[in-house]
């Protein structure tokens, strides 16, 4: 998928929310969905299990209107976090322009975060994408939980963010950090417009 289509004068950003199961990826999308005027959002597609776990993926198209003569569209995806849905994750990751890694700040999910991050790297690599070349930001969700249950922003950075990409503490349920994260990844992706060669 191309980021910029100069012929159709269209910018399409595919952003994928990645992370361990129950870290709050879908919650992020739901919060965004709730804040976008109806005219700007498409139907949010969510395939969930009975227990509200993402079965396949969530998809939220956002129409940002015409910016500098370009019809700008954002497509937000989430992947199913559970390890046994790796095929789906690979599928969703295809053609991603940027990835938001939603980490679960709870100390007990420490290993899940690492495992998911490793899985992200592997899946990208399988598609010939070096994670170092792809815009990635971290979101450390559930920072609203009691201090003794969670790792702080810095601790999460130490554990996951060894390339020092932008990272955001968040409480996706209440919206804290959701738009900051979205803005962060969007800017990283859009800034590649200038450096990346425009692909038609």
């Amino acid at each position, binding site marked *: 998928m191309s980021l910029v289509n100069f012929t159709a004068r269209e910018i399409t950003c595919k952003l994928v929310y990645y992370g361990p199961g129950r870290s709050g990826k879908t919650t992020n999308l739901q919060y965004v969905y709730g804040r976008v005027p109806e005219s700007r959002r498409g139907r949010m597609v969510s395939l969930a299990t009975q227990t509200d776990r993402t079965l396949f993926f969530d998809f939220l198209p956002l129409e*940002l209107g015409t910016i500098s003569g370009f019809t700008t569209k954002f497509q937000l995806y989430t992947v199913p976090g559970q390890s046994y849905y790796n095929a789906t994750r690979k599928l969703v990751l295809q053609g991603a322009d940027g990835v938001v890694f939603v980490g679960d700040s709870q100390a007990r999910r420490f290993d899940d975060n690492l495992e998911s991050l490793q899985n992200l790297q592997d899946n990208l690599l399988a598609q010939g994408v070096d994670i170092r070349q792809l815009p990635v930001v971290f979101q450390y969700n559930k920072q609203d939980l009691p201090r003794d249950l969670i790792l702080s922003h810095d601790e999460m950075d130490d554990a996951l963010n060894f390339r020092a990409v932008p990272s955001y503490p968040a409480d996706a349920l209440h919206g804290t950090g959701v738009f900051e994260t979205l803005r962060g990844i969007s800017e990283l992706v859009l800034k590649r417009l200038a450096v990346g060669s425009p692909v038609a």
Partner: protein
Amino acid sequence: MTVTLNPLYRFDTLIVGAANRLAVTAAKAVAESPGTVYNPLFIYARPGLGKTHLLMAIGHAARAINPRLTVEYLTLDEFVEAFHAAIAAGHGEAYRKRFLDVDVLLVDDVQFLTHRREMQAELLRLTDALQATNRQIVLTSDRPPAEIEALDERLIRRFAGGLIIDVAAPDYETRVAILRRKAEERRAGFGEAVLEAVASLAIDNVRELLGALNRLIAFQAVSEQALGPEQARMLVGGEVETSEPTAPAAQPVVESSPAVASAEPSEFDDFLSEIAATVAQQVDAWRGKVTAAVLRWQGEGFRTAQLEVLLAQEMVNDPERILREFEEDVVRLQHMQAEAAALAPELAGSAAFRDPANLDAAEEALRQAREEGAPPPPPSPLWRLDTMVETAANRVVLEAVRTVAAEPAHRYNPLVLVGGPAVGKTHLLHALGNALAERGGPVACLSAPEFTGELIEAIDRDAIAGWRARYRRATAFLLDDVHLIAAKDRTQDELFVLFNALIDAGRQLVFTSAAPLDELTGVEPRLRSRLEGGLVVELSPPDAAVRERVLLRDLESKLGTADPQLAAYVASRPADSVRAAQALLQRVLEAASAQGVTPSAAFAREVIEGQTPAPAAAKRSSSRSSGLVAPGASATRSREKMVWEWPEVSERVIEEWR
């Protein structure tokens, strides 16, 4: 949202003074023929000086002239609001179309474009589109475009492409006229000198002036007594002093801000505006780069039409490559220009090296420069003025030559050296050429046949202009054997033109001629008279003293020591030139070398005359005789008079048979 034009804001209700006359004239011209004269028209003035009045007056007048015209007036805030509303409703294109159909678009207060990149881009697009269809756009601002903070360069250029005009504060007379007109409109009568008193106050904002008038009217309405000038001044003066002069400027912001403030700050809107800014920045980054390149290269004097064409386009494939190629071309031009300028300094600023779109012209110019730039033939370095032998016979000539060398083109111009063959004209010419060359600049020193030869070659190559230029650059022009141009009409024409050009340019000219100028046949009188116009000096054949000095020097350089007697003897031998005397000496030296003896006067006599050295010979040699030995008993013994080797008899016979 479009505000209807205020019916009071017409040209006929506008007081025209020195401060706004230009702006009113331009505005009327625009109203009379929208889209043709000044497009866009940009009017700027401090608040309260009638920008909006002018803007609306244009609308009224345009409509009055052609009622079918669609005229739209709106402030920038309304423009922005409408844009946001249209985008929110997903009708961005409809919004654009709406303005594209407007014949006269009047936009007020564009200073609020500051930091609104998205709106700037919209306005740019709109301006371009309206201009392209000959539709008029008029804008007003409280400051000139260049002072609107963070305003897109392209917009500034677009505005500058039309007409930017300012309205100054009204002068006293205009203020009185305004007050009178307004008082009349309000049917308010004031005592003598009241309005004049108010006008004399330092109120140069029309809006404040009218506010002052309102105060006067209100005061007079409740006052039983008529208002006096002093009273009026105090009443109004107090008001003015307490009022904040910048308040009106800030007013529109305050007015527009409730609308902005009422909009609920939304996370998504914030997000959207930041994304818009990022996208605009990234998508339009190439425009910034191209604009920067245009400004840079224009600043350095290069034509940037190629790049400006890009800016007019909405999208460009691979602008980086185009910029890179443009810069490569510029570098090539710079190199070519540097080379050309080294060859011909006048090419330093040549337009041929300023257009990267036309490298062929630059290459052609360089090729010409190379051809023309080759320095004209220089004087031979063999001869130098300081080695010239001076004697009583050539003192006058040498003095003239030295004067020319010291003050070229000042004293004797042209200098013509006349003398028979082998009297040293050429030596002197080249020696003078070298002296002139030391002063710097190319010195042309060549013979007339060479000059003609070059001319023929230049004609043949169709490079006559370059050939001429080459000689015109010479700081001095020395032509040997000018008599040889006789009957060569084209050479004479060229020489005549060159002569005039060089004299006009203050360059020295030196000629040599084998014949006196008045005996030159086949040379055009106009050229001859010019040659005669300078100094003509005659070189006599070198006398024995000159020959002796030259021979002494030759001996010194060849043997290390100079035998004065030998030199004197050889110099005394008959020779019509120094060259002949030198040849004679050479013959003696070769004979001495062959026989392994030291050359001496006696030996020379033996070699030259075939005589054994005799005491009398030394005496004779020192005397100035013709060198001829009188025929006598020993006449047949003179080596010079005898044939030593007879040719073969058979050869002679054949010779005679012929």
